[in-house]
């Protein structure tokens, strides 16, 4: 059946089983491959996207549950890597393999929306569910602090 979703400001009609996880609609139907499949069980955070600015795990979000909420993926965070977090991620040289980083950045972006100057504890709490196999955690924290204009 046809489902209507708004991704990065663009409306799409997708013809798909309604219980399909949003992750597969983004990656396979819309070819937005910046959002990654990590565990498929909501345990790793690699598939993090925004629904109306809130961070959610796309692998645990049936597309039928999205409704009229606006979806933002890493591709929609900015058009030119100009989001303060993207700049900070480059400045702090955060990614190694990079696979988890779309999810990390989307999780951090939701944090900065709710807490523009987060404390170290707030950062750690918010980022706790995003796993990085390369263990770039220290740099992730520094990049968030840089983007927020707060010192360590």
């Amino acid at each position, binding site marked *: 059946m046809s489902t209507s979703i708004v991704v990065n400001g663009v409306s799409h009609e997708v013809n798909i089983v309604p219980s399909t996880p949003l992750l597969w609609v983004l*990656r396979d139907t819309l*070819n*937005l*491959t*910046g*959002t*990654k*499949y990590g565990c498929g069980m909501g345990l790793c955070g690699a598939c993090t996207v925004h629904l109306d600015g809130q961070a959610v795990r796309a692998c645990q979000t049936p597309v039928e549950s999205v409704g009229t909420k606006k979806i933002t*993926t*890493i*591709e929609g*965070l*900015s058009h030119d*890597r100009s989001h303060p*977090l*993207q700049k900070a*991620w*480059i400045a702090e*040289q*955060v*990614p*190694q*393999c*990079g*696979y988890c*980083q*779309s999810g990390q*950045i989307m999780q951090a972006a939701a944090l900065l929306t709710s807490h523009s100057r987060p404390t170290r504890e707030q950062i750690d709490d918010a980022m706790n569910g995003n796993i990085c196999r*390369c263990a770039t955690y220290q740099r992730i924290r520094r990049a968030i602090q840089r983007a927020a204009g707060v010192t360590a």
Partner: protein
Amino acid sequence: MKSTVTRREVVETGIALMIGFALPLRGKGDPEKNEFNAWVRISSNNQITVLAETPEMGQGTRTANIMMLAEELELDWSSVHWEQAPTIPRIYKDLLAGGSSGTIHTWPTLRKAGAQAREMLLAAAAHRWGVDVQQCHATDGAIVHTPSGRRVVYGDLVRDAVRLPVPDPDHVPLKDPKNFRLIGKPLQRVDIPDKVDGSAVFGLDVRRPGMLYAVIARPPHLEARRCTWMTPMQKLVQA
């Protein structure tokens, strides 16, 4: 090794200079049998590309490879393009990453390849100007005639340089480490920008026309045997 670059593998269209040399370990292989390696491409529009064997997986070899080439070839490192070497096993022997070997393995290869290109470009410029090659030097992507200050960029020398013999990799002069501009200094990794906007392509992101997807169905216990099997479509119909 006495050979002109007539057997170069030009991957892209247009006039391009591919620098290659037989691996010393393969006993100065006969160039007539295409025993060449090729790591440097210079197009006539002055685009310089390093072809690298070690895939970038976040370990930084892409950046390191660019530094090695730019060091010997006297280039602005940020102008060098990087390309994964194609799967041509007779040329590229180490299309892998593992054991922290990428930088060590590419170190002699890419420095010599860069030095060969530099020497050929120097010779081509000296010949064009009718001057002694000793009066010329390479700097910032160009050959300069030191006494007069005349200057020609690499891309404008490619047509002449490809006709010259490729210097012996065992004797091509390498830079003295005390003159290194780049190597030994921390630089920003070139693979990172694509990893902050979702544009970096990982294995899972590759799409081919008509591509099918599969996963391994693992048994729930040891020595399990398959008794029935349905295609996904059959399962969907049954459901």
